């Protein structure tokens, strides 16, 4: 069954470049404007107009090329991809075909089991996006919105190096992280700024020759990528095991039904009649240009993760999570600056734990976190100096999140300061022991687990404020024999 088959996946990721204006016109690229208000004569493909290349798009493509250690082409060529469609105003898309701007790069991806896999990137090329067809609210008609037409895209084509849906998602996430680090794409998948086509095939394990592939178009979430690939793999295996043959075709993923459907077969595929666009000169890139772009490269995710792991003695996993976005990394580093590198693990746990779950729960970006790095630092200081316990700290954090006040104010107002006075703790312990003679007897007769009962009772009596380490120590002494907690 499945275990006899090897899955082969390659992705074509379309990242919308974060330029202010379009790739060949001066129209703005902002999302969400009323239809056809951000399309000028060039975008509309009017007679006589000509494209002029946006240099920012070239810089961004080169930036990406440098970040994946690719060959940046000193000379690349725009070509026309010819086909008719109402949302394609000129009847051709300006893209790059034979000579793309970026070739032969690679990216390291960490898999679930912690293993690192290198995925080859065949090429990345610049192209313009098409417009959109609108059907909603239009009876017997199709509306065309050309706001998106001419938006710059970087199409990133991987080698068929991925062997599972999870690997594909891990790779796509890594590219997502990278383009956002580089600030060349906002990565907004709902708005379509980051989407992909997946080429999927299966072959018997051990066979070298690739199976026939299907291309699943326009996947705009990590979850859809995973589910679509899983569905497609199962479909192909079923066909082959049933004695059939997979046909080369383009398929669409229907997320409502969780299935892929045939869109067009190879025979129906367009002959795009690519040829160099005579309206645009070849893009010539020289060393000073590349050097200038290189100078704008930020610390890359892998570099940041390695630094975190080394400087803060974090695990590769933690370092990877904390460097998954520039903003998260910056937040973490700001907290470290406050509490000191010696408490990096504590800071990491808080950022990855309470903070991340609160952000997720309320669907807030880290830049807009209700608890800023200084405030979190204030809270961690109180844990470090044992003013509060870790458990109480969670309660304080929740209050900070909802009330927006600093940790100290909340600790004071709620009287959450930890009890570290041994005498006071002892007094409570004595009272608890006195009130529970049966449990004491059982404990002493060997029911070790009851140690926890007494801890709980003391904590209950102190409102959770007893210093846990001190409490353990004192309780052990008071209860005497039997317990070994």
């Amino acid at each position, binding site marked *: 069954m499945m275990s006899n088959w090897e899955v082969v996946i390659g992705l074509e990721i379309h990242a919308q470049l974060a330029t202010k204006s379009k790739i060949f016109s001066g129209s703005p690229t902002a999302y969400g404007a009323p239809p056809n208000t951000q399309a000028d*004569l060039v975008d*509309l*493909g*009017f*007679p*006589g*107009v*000509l*494209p*002029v*290349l946006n240099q920012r798009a070239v810089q961004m493509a080169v930036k990406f090329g440098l970040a994946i250690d690719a060959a940046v082409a000193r000379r690349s060529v725009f070509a*026309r991809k*010819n086909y*008719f469609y*109402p949302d394609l*105003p*000129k*009847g*051709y898309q300006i893209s790059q075909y034979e000579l793309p701007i970026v070739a032969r790069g690679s990216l390291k991806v960490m898999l679930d089991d912690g293993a690192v896999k290198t995925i080859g990137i065949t090429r990345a090329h610049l192209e313009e996006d098409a417009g959109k067809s609108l059907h909603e609210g239009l009876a017997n008609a*199709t509306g*065309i919105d050309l706001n998106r037409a001419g938006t710059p895209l970087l199409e990133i084509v991987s080698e068929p190096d991925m062997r599972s849906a999870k690997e594909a998602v891990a790779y796509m996430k890594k590219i997502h992280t990278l383009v956002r680090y580089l600030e060349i794409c906002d990565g907004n998948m709902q708005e379509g700024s980051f989407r992909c086509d997946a080429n999927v095939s299966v072959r018997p394990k051990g066979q070298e020759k690739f199976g026939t592939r299907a291309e699943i178009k326009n996947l705009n979430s990590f979850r859809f990528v995973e589910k679509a690939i899983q569905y497609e793999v199962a479909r192909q295996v079923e066909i082959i095991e049933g004695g059939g043959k997979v046909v080369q075709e383009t398929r669409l993923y229907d997320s409502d039904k969780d299935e892929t459907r045939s869109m067009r077969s190879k025979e129906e595929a367009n*002959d795009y*009649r*690519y*040829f160099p666009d*005579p*309206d*645009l*000169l070849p893009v010539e890139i020289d060393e000073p240009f590349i050097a200038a772009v290189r100078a704008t490269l930020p610390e890359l995710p892998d570099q940041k993760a390695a630094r975190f792991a080394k400087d803060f003695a974090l695990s590769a996993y933690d370092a990877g999570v904390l460097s998954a976005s520039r903003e998260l990394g910056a937040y973490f580093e700001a907290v470290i600056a406050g509490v000191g590198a010696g408490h990096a693990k504590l800071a990491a746990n808080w950022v990855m734990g309470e903070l991340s779950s609160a952000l997720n729960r309320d669907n807030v970006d880290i830049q807009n976190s209700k608890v800023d790095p200084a405030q979190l630092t204030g809270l961690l200081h109180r844990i470090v100096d044992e003013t509060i316990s870790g458990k109480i700290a969670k309660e304080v954090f929740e209050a900070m999140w909802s009330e927006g006040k600093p940790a100290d104010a909340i600790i004071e107002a709620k009287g959450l300061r930890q009890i570290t006075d041994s005498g006071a703790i002892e007094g409570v312990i004595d009272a608890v022991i006195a009130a529970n003679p049966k449990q004491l007897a059982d404990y002493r007769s060997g029911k070790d687990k009851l140690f926890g009962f007494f801890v709980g009772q003391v904590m209950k009596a102190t409102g959770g404020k007893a210093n846990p380490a001190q409490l353990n120590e004192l309780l052990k002494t008071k209860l005497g024999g039997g317990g070994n907690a």
Partner: protein
Amino acid sequence: MLHNLFIGELAERLTKRQISSVELTRHFLSRIERLNPGLNAFITLTPKQALQEAAAADARLAAGEKGPLLGIPLIHKDIFCTDGVKTSCGSRMLDNFVAPYDATVVARLKGAGAVMLGKSNMDEFAMGSSNETSYYGPVKNPWDTTKVPGGSSGGSAAATAARLAPFATGTDTGGSIRQPAALTGVTGFKPTYGRVSRYGMIAFASSLDQAGVFTRSAGDAAAVLQVMAGFDARDSTSVDAPVPDYSKALGAPLKGLKIGLLREFFEGLEPRNAALIEDALTIYTGLGAETREVSLPHLPLSVPTYYVVAPAECSSNLSRFDGVRFGYRCKDPKDLMDLYKRSRGEGFGAEVKRRIMTGTYVLSAGYFDAYYLKAQKARRMITDDFRAAFEKVDLVIGPTTPTPAFDIGAKVNDPVLMYLNDIYTIGANLAGLPGISIPCGFVDSLPMGLQLVGPHFAEAKLLNAAHQYQQATDWHRHAPRGYE
């Protein structure tokens, strides 16, 4: 008469306030009204706008402003987009199209104070050598109205020859300025590819198209080019190089100028045509130029090369005419395919369809290498031939066309015969070189053209060589009977 004056003479009278631009404009408008019905040189006339522009030019003149084209009337080929004015490109497809902007050429001439009288007839989408493919009917040659004026800029050529305007714009993709200039006895100038912006010029074959001008003298062409030429940030293929003072270059003596005689141009040349070229060479040697034979061994490939490259580009350029956003749309399309097929089927004429089909074919998978790529290689070889020739000579000379103007209808059903009309002009387009055709005599009472082609950006040298010839001859002063 005013209409026989050259641009420089008109500008002088305007500057001295001897005439007003409004008077001049009225003079040409009335000639157009009287003479154009026999020629069909226009698709659109803009008399009202012309008089407004003329009045504005007069105001500038009255304020003391001077300019070589200030207040001078002109005609634009209907391939140039003109803001608020129908821009049809000679096609039913754009019969309803009013351009929402000015082409750079139009804007520059407008800025210089030139006054647009109207838009000239042309072969549909500039595809043709006789002006017979126009949706608006053929243009007649003023020298003999049973003859074609050449194409594709036939309306501009005929109108300039008939003195309906001092000058007219044109475009030249394979000879579309030089060939009709030759056939109507006027001066037709195609600059270096990239010298004049293509922005707003409806594309036929983008790597070959170049805007230029019809005038009655090389001196006039220099004055007009001065305004048209120059870098345009909106055309990536326009060249960012300084524009020399073309009129200033006109005085230079030709002593020592090395003129190349293209062996390939003279092989099989009709004797009367050859005799005219010989006469021209005698003039040039008399002016101190030296002649020597040069060869462009790959030039015979130029027609087949052109008829792969140009259709390939046009097949893509004309895809935007799909009935969706502008231009012709078929009635009651039943679905998208029907909309495409009928809008394009009904909107385009036969020659345009022929070239779209040819171009689609040569770009198709499986044929691309054999046709398109091979044509690109041939194009490079032709360009290299010219480059080698220009290491030996300053410019090359030859006939513009194999024959004088032919009968309307004579070649319309034989595309190959029609295409061979461009045999002498296509090379300059493939290599991106500047070329000029100037009148050099008559065969069968019809004008013939002498063509000069120079290296890239040798406009000044070319214009001066043409100017010196016109100082020594008067072929360019001949007017067709009835239009004097």
